[in-house]
């Protein structure tokens, strides 16, 4: 019955723990200087304004201090000089899996991506290190005018839409890591959904890190025009390496009036990855942006998806599940910026800390004085499995003015010995009982994920819990 700290959860990431030897035709080398940026610009044939944008980003990155005055000092363990900032076999994504280089194709096949594409997706982009290896969209969806391509490609092919929104939701100097991304970004998705088009099936991106001591810095920009609807899903894995790897993405969403965007993430990086991501959406009048975010992997994740509700009656939502295993720190949360009347936001966050794992919730809710009839609801629940597991909650809620309402509930619970005994008395082993209770704890949130993902999520949680107890 005792939950021995010594026999902690064996984090099983075997699903992504493999790698193929790949010869990279383009390698920016180790370290980050202006020369690195020039190399990336030259290889990618960036227009001048992007070159300037990158260099500006680099300056801001170098100028900004590491945010250790509020975040974990573990950030200081990132050695930026040891990281490779650009690795690829070419900049052109393939439209057919048959054209994708063999090692990359095998990688994605092992991860089940082509199979998922056939089964239930409207389009797929598969990024391998710095560039998309594959990108395709169903003909029927493309015919409706939906654009889905790598951001590198979009920059060249659709500068009209790209330039209008790029860097507008998240300015490069938003934080140290958005500045880093702005300097060296490569890959990521670009999506444009024309007015009134409702994309029935999800579009999916899969991010794969294959190289050691590498940084992946994709940049995703999604624009849902008036009254359109879209669900986008992203998954990610990397092999286990001895050295630290960094993943620092910037994701910008724009929901025009009446549009709906759902953005689903299942993050399962190996536990050597620093995952430092900035995600924010801009919701215009009566638009809705919903982040459904699940963090299982990585060494340290810092991610606070946000919604700026700029138009009247806009809605923002963050549904978040974090599982922090031994040696992991999931520092996640949400930002809800109310900037118009009658806007509503909802945050539901559940975290599980196992062993020496630490889950931190940071939530910012801001409703300024001049607004009327804004509402926020925040619930954050933490489950601690072992006596040395850790959870922290840092809510920062500023609601001013008359007629604005805010509700915040937080709880910390443990699975009791009596609950485990009860389940064991029915013949369920202690480990299975733990797993059942943990799945029960997140069950209502798991249901928010698309079915294919919720099944995968339950499986991942079971794997994490296996062997978690004596």
């Amino acid at each position, binding site marked *: *019955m*005792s939950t021995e700290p010594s026999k902690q959860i064996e984090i099983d990431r075997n699903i992504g723990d493999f790698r193929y030897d790949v010869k990279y035709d383009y390698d920016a080398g180790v370290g980050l200087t202006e020369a690195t940026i020039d190399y990336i610009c030259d290889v990618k044939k960036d227009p001048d304004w992007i070159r300037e944008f990158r260099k500006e980003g680099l300056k801001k990155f170098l100028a900004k201090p590491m945010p250790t005055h509020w975040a974990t000092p573990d950030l200081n363990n990132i050695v930026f000089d040891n990281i490779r900032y650009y690795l690829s076999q070419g900049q052109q994504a393939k439209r057919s899996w048959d054209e994708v280089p063999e090692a990359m194709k095998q990688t994605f096949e092992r991860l089940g991506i082509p199979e998922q594409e056939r089964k239930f997706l409207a389009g797929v982009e598969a990024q391998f290190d710095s560039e998309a290896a594959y990108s395709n969209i169903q003909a029927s969806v493309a015919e409706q005018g939906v654009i889905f391509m790598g951001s590198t490609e979009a920059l060249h092919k659709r500068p009209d839409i790209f330039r209008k929104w790029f860097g507008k939701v998240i300015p490069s100097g938003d934080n140290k890591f958005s500045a880093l991304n702005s300097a060296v970004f490569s890959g990521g998705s670009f999506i444009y959904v024309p007015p009134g088009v409702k994309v029935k099936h999800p579009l999916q991106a899969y991010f794969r890190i294959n190289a050691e001591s590498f940084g992946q810095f994709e940049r995703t920009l999604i624009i849902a025009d008036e009254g359109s609807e879209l669900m986008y899903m992203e998954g990610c894995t990397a092999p286990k390496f001895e050295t630290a790897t960094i993943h620092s993405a910037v994701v910008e969403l724009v929901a025009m009036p009446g549009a709906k965007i759902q953005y689903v993430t299942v993050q399962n990086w190996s536990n050597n990855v620093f995952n430092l991501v900035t995600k924010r959406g801009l919701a215009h009048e009566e638009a809705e942006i919903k982040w459904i975010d699940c963090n299982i992997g990585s060494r340290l994740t810092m991610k606070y998806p946000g919604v700026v509700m700029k138009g009247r009656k806009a809605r923002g939502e963050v549904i978040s599940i974090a599982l922090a295993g031994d040696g992991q720190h999931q520092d996640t949360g949400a930002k809800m910026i109310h900037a118009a009347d009658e806007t509503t936001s909802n945050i539901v966050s559940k975290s599980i800390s196992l062993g020496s794992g630490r889950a931190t919730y940071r939530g910012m809710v801001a409703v300024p004085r001049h607004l009327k009839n804004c509402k926020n609801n925040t619930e954050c629940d933490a489950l601690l499995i072992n006596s040395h597991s850790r959870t922290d909650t840092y809510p920062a809620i500023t609601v001013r003015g008359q007629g604005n309402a805010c509700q915040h509930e937080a709880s910390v619970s443990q699975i*009791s*010995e*009596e*609950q485990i*005994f*009860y*389940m*064991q*008395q*029915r*013949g*369920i*082993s*202690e480990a*299975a*009982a733990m797993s*059942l*209770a943990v*799945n*029960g*704890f*997140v*069950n*209502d949130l798991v249901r928010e994920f698309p079915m294919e993902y919720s099944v995968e999520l339950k499986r991942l949680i079971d794997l994490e819990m296996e062997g978690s107890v004596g």
Partner: protein
Amino acid sequence: MSCLSIQNLHASIGDQPILQGLSLEIPKGEVHAIMGKNGSGKSTLAKIMAGHPAYTVTSGDVLLDGESILGLEPDERSRRGLFLAFQYPMEIPGVSIANFIRAALQARLPEGEEFEAVEYYGRLYKKMDSLLIDRKFTSRSVNDGFSGGEKKRCEILQMAMLEPKYAVLDETDSGLDIDALRIVSEGVNAMRGKDRGMVVITHYQRLLEYIVPDRVHVMVAGQIVMSGDKDLALRLESEGYDWAEDLRNSK
């Protein structure tokens, strides 16, 4: 050998002795009642048999069909055929009754054997109907927000689904109104049979009007002090537990 046998069992919690040489034999096919007032150790006996980690067995043994189960984990004891209907069933938020019972049944399947979901739901619904449990309950979280009566019926449902060799019902009548008591008792009686032994723990005679025991045992201070047939329960009801205690002291 086909019996649940408790042999001179001594057990304690911390330094506090709870069971002090308790012996009892429940053959398959029989229903035994254990009566005693609060604090006599009845519920503790049930938990110790099931392997609750808070208690230490200091001497004696518990044999299930001739084999000691004291060294086994609670889940293994359950899979060997021991069931405990809890006095206070635990709430498991987010885990539906259907999934919970399914997990319990799955734990009994040999490795590699597939679970038959269609057959399972057929059986589950049938048992629920007989216990007058609304079928909607399958998707409700185990005991979460249940009334006292609903919890007890849910315990009997689990017993019916798991078909144990031996069942211990701990104060199953507590918190039940007369209608619920009747339904629960009918559920228990339906489970009686030559292949199953049952122990009914109660401190009221009332339950035993519905579940008529083959034997009645009186427990005082961690020991069985008196055994008899069902009339002993009636005698106890009229004379009170002091009578049994006096009898023990005079021994």
